[in-house]
């Protein structure tokens, strides 16, 4: 059952990912991104990362996407009129990606990953995660808050009308 779910979700993720690139309209791209992310949340659930799945949906599908859509509407982006095929871009892109894929595949096939079932399964629930976060990783967590603050200040500053 879980295996099937995995295949479904992963297929959905990849498909939506492909569609992000292929669709002309940025709004469509954004929508496919939401879908892709949502199905990835499904994969997270399969991996028992429940908290993360929730956060993924909340942050990406909720916050980030809204931001994207706002910007798209703010800038009033039109559908790309003609898809000028950037030959250089396409060739190099495919080439680069091909190389990366090849390297990754060969790497993965060449390494042995840990056996699956013997390992104790941690439930990726909120509680163990929170414990870990506020004990071992409390300092990065706090620093992250500063980062967010900085990002907020930066974003506000950048969006001010009279940008010098």
């Amino acid at each position, binding site marked *: 059952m879980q295996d099937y779910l995995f295949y479904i979700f992963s297929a959905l993720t990849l498909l939506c990912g492909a569609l992000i690139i292929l669709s002309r309209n940025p709004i469509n791209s954004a929508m496919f991104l939401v879908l892709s992310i949502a199905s990835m949340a499904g994969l997270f659930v399969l991996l028992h990362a429940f908290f993360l799945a929730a956060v993924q949906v909340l942050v990406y599908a909720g916050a980030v996407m809204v931001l994207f859509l706002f910007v798209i509407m703010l800038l009033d982006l039109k559908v790309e009129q003609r898809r000028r095929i950037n030959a250089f871009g396409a060739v190099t892109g495919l080439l*680069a990606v091909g190389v990366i894929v090849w390297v990754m595949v060969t790497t993965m096939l060449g390494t042995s990953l840990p056996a699956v079932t013997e390992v104790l399964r941690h439930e990726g629930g909120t509680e163990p995660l929170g414990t870990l976060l506020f004990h071992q990783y409390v300092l990065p967590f706090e620093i992250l808050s500063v980062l967010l603050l900085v990002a907020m200040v930066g974003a506000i500053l950048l969006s001010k009308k009279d940008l010098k």
Partner: protein
Amino acid sequence: MEDHFIENLGWVALLLPLLSAVAITLGGPFGARRAAAKISIGAVALSFVASLILFLYLHLTGQPALAETSFPWLIIGKYGELNNLQFNLGLQLDTLSLVMMLVVTGVGLLIHIYSQGYLAGDPGYSRYFACLSLFTFSMLGIVLADNFLMMFIFWELVGISSYLLIGFWYHKPAAADACKKAFITNRIGDFGFLLGILLVWSVLGSVGFASLKLEAAHPNHFGPVATIAGLLIFCGAMGKSAQFPLHVWLPDAMEGPTPVSALIHAATMVAAGVYMLCRVYFLLSFPGSQALEIIGWIGGFTALLAALIAVQQNDIKRILAYSTLSQLGYMVMAVGSHGPTAAMYHLTTHAFFKALLFLGAGAVIHAMHHEQDIWQMGGLRKKLPVTFWTFLTGTLALCGVPFFSGFYSKDSILAQALKNGSYGLFIIGVLVAALTTFYMARLALVVFWGSARSSAAEHPHEAPGVMLWPLRILAVPSVIGGLLFIEATFEHFFAGGHGEAGTITWAEQLLEPLNASPAAALSGIFAIMVGGAFAGALYWKAASDPLPLRLGWFARAMRNRFYFDELYERVLIPATHELWSRIAQAIDRWIIGGLAVRGASGATEFAGRALRLVQSGSLQTYAFLLVAGVAAVIYCLLAR
């Protein structure tokens, strides 16, 4: 105690002039500037007295030489080991050096006194005397040096003091150029000299004359390099004594004040080369060395060349300068025909009468308000009686008129050439004697006889006594120099102390040339008569020079010094140094500065420009390159 006194007297004589130079230079603010002449004269007078005492002491005790006093100037390495080097400063007090010292200090003293009058009122009065003292010091250093290096040191110092004195009126471009030329020409000679010293040192292992003499006494490995070493050392003399082909500086050096010309460029410094050759004669005459022969011919050639040039010069000082050149060539010729005695003999007498001539010329120039062209003069016989008579004495001595000093010494050289079998040199010698008489008679006739050719010549004023007394005093040895047993003294010295000294009487001495070598003496007298007759025929009351008309291009060539200066300035120097320096400059600017340095920076810049093309500004290209890089890194790290 007494011995110490005598030994240290040499140092005293050497250092007094230096002390005077330093005192005049540093003591300017304390009144030494005004007293410059007195300090300087005092120093050289004391030096003269010291030399005299030393000479008499040596003569009376009958020693060949006083013990050397030396102290190490520079020591490197342990003594006796390989790679050790030691230079001493020491004094060689023997007959040769003491007679030379007497000449230097004696003539020097008179010229110092003369200068006091000649330069009165010149703004550089004290500088002049400081330089003159420095010169006396350096010259005494050469004379007294007991090793090659010390001689070289003073050799250079003499060069620099000569430089300073020639360039005394440095604001005159001619003087400034002349001193430069003199110094550089001398430096070329010194180049050979230093190489010669290095060669001798590396083969014989020492630079001291005494030890070299011992080394050279027994057969050794010096033979193969003897010729080349001798010639290299001769290069030094070639520069200082202005032998062909380095003779060009001496006439130009006449830009200096006339007393300087008398002291340095007639009597003493230019004779240093000859003195040095005599000093190291044992090296030059080393068995198997061909050096002397070449030296003799160079000397003979110089003598002839300079005499020919002198015939057509019009500047009174230049005539004397070329005459000096010619006489120096004579001396070198004497050394070359194995006659250091004759060379030193002529050197001594020449110092007297040539100094006399120059000082006389100075008096004439002074009287003529610094006019030096002889064709502007004339009829000065009556107006400048003292100058005339002393100058005439000098002229007769220089020509070698019998019973004047020049007669004996010149005859000694001719006799030596005959004795040595160098008939070519003998003929040159006779020819030069005739030419000498010719141009000197021309000079005397034009200047002192005839009628005044310019307004300055009509109202000359005789020089003050301070200038005339040196003339009178110098005239005495110019006349009787041949009777002073100088030759015998030197003969005694060069024979290594084995010869018989002082056994002939005055009367014998008077007629000695005719006894010793009648052929030489008679041909010398004949040459004088011929030369004098020609000059008399041509220049007796002549208004202008008739010779150019008769000789045409040859006279022009003589007047233009056979174009040696032009040859050097337009061909030789451009072809060597100028060319090379241009090439070097071009290489420096274009190849090293341009190709290498700019090339390196240019290549960097070119690489930068080439890489700039990659900066298309297109984000995606950057991204691609980034990915390519990442892929490469991953590949290297993981998939290998």
